[in-house]
């Protein structure tokens, strides 16, 4: 059969993307978070319509407006967040939407038989009658694949399948995928893990910022080359001096040891984290989003308590049972600029002058005996807006009405304005325009000069390189690299970020 062709010409999330996948291959689609790979596949699966462009499957141009259409074309998708109903059994989950008969017991029999056949041929085994809630993560994923295959998928899309798997389970998955390829199915693997792509795939496409930047057979690619293509080069914001003297090795202002944390689903997110921050330095944490950076910030700022570990910050000690909380964090001089501006940093419905005191509303300068000092708050906000050039200079405007860059500047003004001794910053320039980026970097550097200890988490490698004195790399909840800035290079960090150096 002729190769499978798909072409899109999209805007915004996907800009003029052309993708061709040959039949019976394992095709890797890689890129950082926000590169556009998931969006592209959502379009293919009919979850969102493309703004423009065309799709051709098995040589025929098709219109995919709904998941139904995609399934009809033989496309199946296994999402990163499983689409399963916990209270139903595995069998019922597979059956849903394609039940052969209205009477369930009668419908179940042919489904069960077909599933047995599929399980034989692919080697995927799932206990069919257990409730999904009782299944392990690996089992659930196998179930998702079986579901797609049951619906007749000849093209299988897998979105970050190993994100929730242990290395052993990942190996098992790879065996299955190779088996499927041998049987003539086509698999598109969305991932940011280069080692997997190199080990598994036949062809690889790299996306960045919504575009396809590279597309080649795997035997022509190298991990270094892919890493470089993935993280790319953006506007190089120069460091003022690369040969700045190393910060004096005073005792650390913040010291975390042995941090360990599992999330609500029991997955290990932080594993044995040891971290030190000194006054007057900027430490950057590099890594692809989802490797524990968010959890680390939550733990260090007091929003979450770890399962194990200790923290010593600004003279105070905290252990796993009696952890820090955001209020006392601010009290001792720790400020936090959160990653999620919309849900955490600002109350979007509040006017700017109310968001500008979030977290500090009980301070004397803003509040006297239980009454908010609106005049003082407004003046403080105006001063903040002046210092950080927040536009428009209207303190009464609702927080959500400001552009992303201005919102971020307001948040920074608020946190920096309290002259913290430790500053935690998550994704400082996400969604921020170029002019504001320069300004923000300048502010962070100024904080360092003033003796503050700054921790910056960013998924933009350029940003880390531009700001940090020291760089830590996180991968799978661990710190895989701890380098002084002079030892860093795009390639080396890219490898560490992708787990290649492990």
């Amino acid at each position, binding site marked *: 059969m002729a190769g499978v062709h798909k072409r899109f010409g999209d805007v915004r999330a996907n800009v003029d993307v052309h993708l061709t996948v040959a039949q019976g291959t394992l095709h890797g689609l890689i890129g950082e978070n926000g590169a556009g790979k998931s969006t592209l596949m959502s379009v293919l699966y009919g979850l969102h319509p493309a703004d423009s462009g065309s799709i051709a499957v098995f040589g025929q141009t098709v219109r995919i407006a709904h998941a139904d259409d995609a399934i009809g074309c033989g496309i199946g998708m296994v999402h990163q967040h499983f689409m399963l109903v916990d209270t139903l059994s595995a069998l019922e989950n597979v059956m*849903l939407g394609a039940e052969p008969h209205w009477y*369930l017991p009668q419908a179940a029999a042919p489904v069960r038989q077909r599933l047995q056949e599929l399980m034989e041929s692919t080697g995927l085994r799932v206990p069919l009658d257990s409730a999904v809630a009782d299944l392990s993560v690996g089992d659930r994923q196998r179930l998702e694949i079986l579901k797609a295959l049951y619906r007749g998928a000849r093209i299988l899309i897998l979105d970050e399948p190993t994100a929730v798997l242990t290395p052993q389970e990942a190996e098992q998955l790879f065996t299955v995928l190779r088996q499927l390829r041998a049987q003539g199915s086509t698999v598109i693997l969305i991932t940011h893990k280069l080692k997997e792509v190199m080990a598994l795939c036949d062809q690889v496409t790299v996306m960045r910022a919504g575009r396809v930047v590279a597309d080649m057979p795997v035997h022509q690619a190298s991990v270094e080359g892919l890493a470089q293509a993935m993280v790319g080069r953006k506007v190089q914001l120069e460091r003022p001096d690369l040969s700045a003297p190393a910060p004096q090795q005073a005792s650390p202002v913040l010291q975390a040891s042995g941090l360990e944390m599992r999330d609500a689903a029991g997955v290990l997110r932080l594993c044995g984290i040891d971290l030190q921050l000194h006054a007057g330095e900027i430490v950057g944490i590099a890594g692809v989003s989802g490797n524990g950076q968010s959890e680390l910030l939550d733990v260090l700022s007091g929003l979450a308590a770890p399962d194990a570990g200790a923290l010593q910050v600004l003279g105070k000690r905290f252990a796993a049972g009696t952890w820090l909380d955001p209020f006392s964090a601010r009290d001792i001089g720790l400020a936090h600029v959160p990653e999620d501006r919309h849900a955490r940093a600002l109350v979007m419905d509040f006017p700017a002058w109310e968001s500008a005191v979030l977290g500090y509303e009980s301070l004397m300068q803003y509040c006297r005996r239980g009454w908010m000092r609106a005049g003082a708050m407004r003046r403080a906000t105006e001063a903040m807006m002046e210092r950080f050039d927040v536009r428009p200079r209207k303190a009464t405007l609702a927080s959500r009405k400001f552009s992303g860059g201005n919102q971020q500047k307001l948040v920074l003004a608020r946190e920096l304005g309290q002259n913290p001794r430790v500053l935690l910053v998550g994704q400082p320039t996400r969604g921020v325009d170029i002019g504001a980026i320069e300004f923000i970097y300048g502010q962070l550097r100024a904080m360092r000069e003033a003796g503050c200890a700054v921790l910056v988490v960013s998924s933009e490698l350029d940003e880390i390189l531009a700001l940090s004195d020291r760089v830590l790399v996180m991968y799978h909840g661990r710190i895989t690299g701890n380098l002084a800035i002079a030892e860093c290079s795009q390639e080396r960090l890219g490898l560490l970020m992708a787990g290649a150096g492990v």
Partner: protein
Amino acid sequence: MDELMLASVLGSGVRLATPLVLCALAGLLSERSGVVDIGLEGKMLFAAFAAGAAGAATGSTALALVAAMGVAVMLSWLHGLACVSYPGDQVVSGVAINIIAAGLTVVLGIAWFGQGGQTPALPVEVRIQAHWESAVQAIAPLPWLGPVIGQALLGHNLLVYVAYALVPVVWFLLYRTRFGLRLRAVGENPHMVEVAGVSVRRLRYAALGLNGLLCGLAGSYLVLAQSASFSPHMTAGRGFMALAALIFGRWMPWPTLWACLLFGLLDAVAMRLQGLELPGVGTVPVQAIQALPYLLTVVLLAGFVGRAVAPAALGKPLD
């Protein structure tokens, strides 16, 4: 205990529970699909009015039933318009339906029949009669069992039997049919259903349609079988009791049935307990027994009697 007393309590408990069962089943279908239904009370009320009005106007039982079910279905779909097709707040919509029903039924009642909102008493032919009267007479002579089974089980009208028969029907629908499987899935994880190629909207509207039919039956029961006409606010909170029974029954048909029967029995007992002395407690106030279903619901919700786990997607609009 006096066997006649027991018999009459059981019988009356079964009858009092009937509208609860119907309403609770209605709520079950809606809430299992993820749509909160606070409006059971209003729908039942309006259906009762429709039955009373149509019955009085046409003299036909069938038309009364159709009118009642039709009105309730329309209200359910209105709820759907606000909450399923648009992301309106499901609770506010339900409350609105209750208030509208309370006012509109009286307004129309006064306008059309003039008796202060009451519909004319329906003649005997229109009302639904007790079935199997003869069987009751036949068993009566049997000692003890006779009156108990007779009054408690056999002496009821058709709608009662229909209502109880609907419990296994709904169970079958929910657990043995394709529609039921999809319905249960939609209440837990609507995204999953959408992604599997099934329309969540259509499922929810279908559930709401069935919900309307059942509420219609509940309302008809009140007017065609229990009393003989509609009077303003006659539902007296039964819709909320049905909701409480549904939660107590953990959104499953059979436990909900037992909860409704429990509430019905409590109601029947309350009337007879008035003035009765219980050892150690003194006179049990009738209001305490009347309040018991509501208290039980709160206790259940507070997690003291095991956690009641609602369908996961209940109350969340689909984005």
